[in-house]
């Protein structure tokens, strides 16, 4: 039975590599956004000029950074939530409410990924451009991608919790 262990090890390594890539994208987009925003101000004040596509690009970057940040938040189930009841529940009950919540979150985000994918596909068929020569669907593509990844993460949480629960009950 050596195989399952090495499979899990590989899964964990894959997840780590993926997180590194995610971090790298997030950091580069953030630095690009700050630089571009400051450069625009510089151009406006000293040369009374500006790059036409910089402002819409910066706004799209806000969306991308926000969604990739949300992806990163779901690595540890670190989303904003109302933590009123769960704080007072015993661990034995929480094991099951968590299962429910993971399943619900995975389901809703999967639904959202599917419908935003349809939205992006429609925009692509319409051939709308966002700014310069960049088609709008490219800017919007992050929405289905982000929700799909969040969904996958919560599916994994669900199974992890399920396995834990089975192990806990003798």
């Amino acid at each position, binding site marked *: 039975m050596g195989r399952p262990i090495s499979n899990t090890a590989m899964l964990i390594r894959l997840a780590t590599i993926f997180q590194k890539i995610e971090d790298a994208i997030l950091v580069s987009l953030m630095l690009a956004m700050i630089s571009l925003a400051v450069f625009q*101000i510089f151009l406006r004040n000293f040369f009374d000029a500006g790059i036409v596509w910089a402002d819409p690009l910066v706004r799209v970057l806000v969306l991308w950074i926000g969604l990739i940040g949300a992806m990163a938040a779901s690595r540890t189930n670190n989303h904003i939530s109302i933590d009123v*009841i769960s704080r007072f529940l015993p661990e034995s009950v929480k094991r099951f409410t968590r299962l429910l*919540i993971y399943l619900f979150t995975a389901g809703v985000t999967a639904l959202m990924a599917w419908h935003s994918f*349809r939205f992006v596909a429609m925009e692509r068929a319409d051939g709308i451009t966002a700014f310069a020569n960049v088609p709008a669907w490219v800017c919007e593509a992050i929405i289905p991608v982000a929700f799909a990844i969040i969904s996958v993460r919560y599916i994994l949480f669900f199974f992890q919790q399920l396995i834990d629960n089975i192990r806990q009950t003798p």
Partner: protein
Amino acid sequence: MTLAIIGILILLALLGAPLFTVIIAAAMLGFHLSEIDLSVVAIELYRIADTPILLALPLFTFAGYILGESNTSKRLVRLTQAFLGWMSGGLAMIAFVVCALFTAFTGASGVTIVAMGALLYPALTRAGYPDRFSLGLVTTSGSLGLLLPPSLPLILYGIIAQQMSDGAQISIEDLFLAGIFPALLMITMLSAWSVWANRANPIPLTRFSLKNCRAALRESIWEIPLPLFVFTGIYSGYFAVSEAAAVTAMYVLIVEVFVYREISLGRLPGIIRESMVMVGGILLILGVSLAFTNFLIDAEAPMKLFDICQSFVSSKLVFLILLNVFLLILGAMLDIFSAIIIMVPLMLPVALEYGVHPVHLGIIFLANMQIGYFTPPVGMNLFIAGYRFKKPIVDIYRATIPFMLVLFLSVLVITYWPALSLFLIS
């Protein structure tokens, strides 16, 4: 059937499901019942990319996280101590002032208690303030400064109000001006109470020394321009809010990484990720709420809500009292960003009907939320303080209650004296 689903959604939210999924589910349910294609939720989410002011959110958050990770807190305490330490009640006042400034820049994410509390709590007890008083003071100060620019909740309120105001124009610059005097009122009342509470307990004062002031000034010379950027830049109309945010973020990055060298380049990616996880959480809720709010407005929910209110409450004064009670409870249960995003679209139209100025409503809203941060049993800062200072949560409850009452009094003044917030804006 629909009611059952709504009940299940509320239960899931209370059990701790991510709030954005609950809002998406509610919005999708609403659109499904109105037979509108569900991809509309994605279209609404994409509106994030059409709202220029939102740029301020990641930039100010990033700047705040960098300041939180460097030694700014130490320098700020030293600076204010040099200038205010000679006054009686000086140290308590220092604590209030530095926490307010720090929170305005870092957002009320608990970082004030962690960074500032770690410096101020031992300093206060060493200076002779009772333990319980000091504990209450640092816990309370963790959310002081929400009303001062460039605090994120203030900006977020402005963004939401702009998104939906038909007729009532509201600018973020106005909100920035409106928060100043209410914040000063809170600091003044808290300081006065601190002096009175310790009247039987003489606290030794530090002598004012010009040399000390000069040294402290020199030490923080690079950080002193920061509030100046924000205040003069925005108030003079030279910078837009998002531009001030860009300049602040760039400046803080350069100063803390390359001038003070307190943050190594290697730590930068981690800090960026941490700050953007927070921004992502807020933006996601904001984005999906745009969809949900549109549905509510289509369904004329605010008007119906107003009609219900009108049948019980006819005067503005009673409305404001009920508003305060409601917001206090809300603030203890919901974190400030989701509270703003979810409640403001419903509340603003109702408040406008009662003749409340939208800017004034924003100040009332945030002032109540500020108290909610440390309202038992679930105010977030109570847990952060308990964790940080390793005290049982019940001790923290007991320590903060007097401060809470003082702040509650100031919120009453702020609520029933609109001119305090509004006299700077025409």
